[in-house]
């Protein structure tokens, strides 16, 4: 079980490290907004988090695609 937890942590922090950091950042921004923005912020905080995470997913996968393409072209050389 500990090995599984360790593998998951390694996967999260190393394999998908940038995604995990991005997600934690999005959560922190949303938390800060909810705690400083007053009543209005509470009504939109979920939508803000959703938008941040969607942008993060697309940007992270774009970066992964560019990285894979670079690996492929260097392997062909």
């Amino acid at each position, binding site marked *: 079980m500990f090995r599984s937890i360790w593998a998951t942590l390694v996967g999260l922090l190393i394999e*998908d490290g940038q995604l995990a950091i991005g997600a934690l950042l999005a959560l922190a921004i949303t938390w800060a907004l909810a705690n400083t923005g007053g009543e209005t912020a509470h009504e939109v905080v979920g939508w803000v988090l959703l938008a941040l*995470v969607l942008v993060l997913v697309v940007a992270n996968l774009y970066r992964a695609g560019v990285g894979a393409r670079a690996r492929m072209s260097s392997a062909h050389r």
Partner: protein
Amino acid sequence: MDPITLAIHATPAFVASAVEFVEATTIVLAVGVTRGWRAPLFGTLAAAATLAVIIATVGVAIVTIVPEQLLKGVVGALLLLFGLRWLRKAVLRFAGIVAIHDEELIYQREVAELRAQGLQRKEFDWIGFLVAYKAVLLEGTEVAFIVVAFGAAGGIALTAATVGAIAAGLFVIALGVALKQPLTMVPENWLKFGVGAMLCSFGVFWFSEALGMEWPGDAVSIPLIVLAFLAASWLAIRMLRALLPQGARVEARNV
């Protein structure tokens, strides 16, 4: 709660748990077919008992002791982190950048390893017992996490998540018993894709609720959030296919 409402609430946990049960069933089948059924069945029962103890102590303690808002916040954040990982891998697999998870290949590899270790017919097969125990315990721990995550609201949600997970277990085990071969027909990447989107959606929903947000229509918003994740994933798959039309088949850790 009427059966239809229960079915709707139980579906996310059913789908997510089915993926984990398929992985555990593949290993147990490999052990059973290669080394006989006694030891892997004992291993499976022992793992189920261990899981019951873990859930009864840690799970119940978490749900009853930790304040609801804090629990929703922590569970929401964890769901989002795990869900994003599943979603990312599923998208990369659909785009042909990472190889599809192959249950048949895993099954054959496990069978070869177990055959190589040999079997003493007279003694209890401890290797078979331990391999099955470990597989069921590891995948079962993830099922327990899924149940706690989807049932974080307590009451109906927890009942529905538990029912969904048990139904998934019975369904996959029945399928495995009937077929006695790896469950390759289960569209695992599609399931992981859907589960990834659902975990992320529940993550966003719970975390925002913990911060004081009231979603329009409460849980009715969840399908809309799922749709948003599916749309973004579809966009990402199209983008990756445009970037790498021939695919790449690289290791997940390298992208």
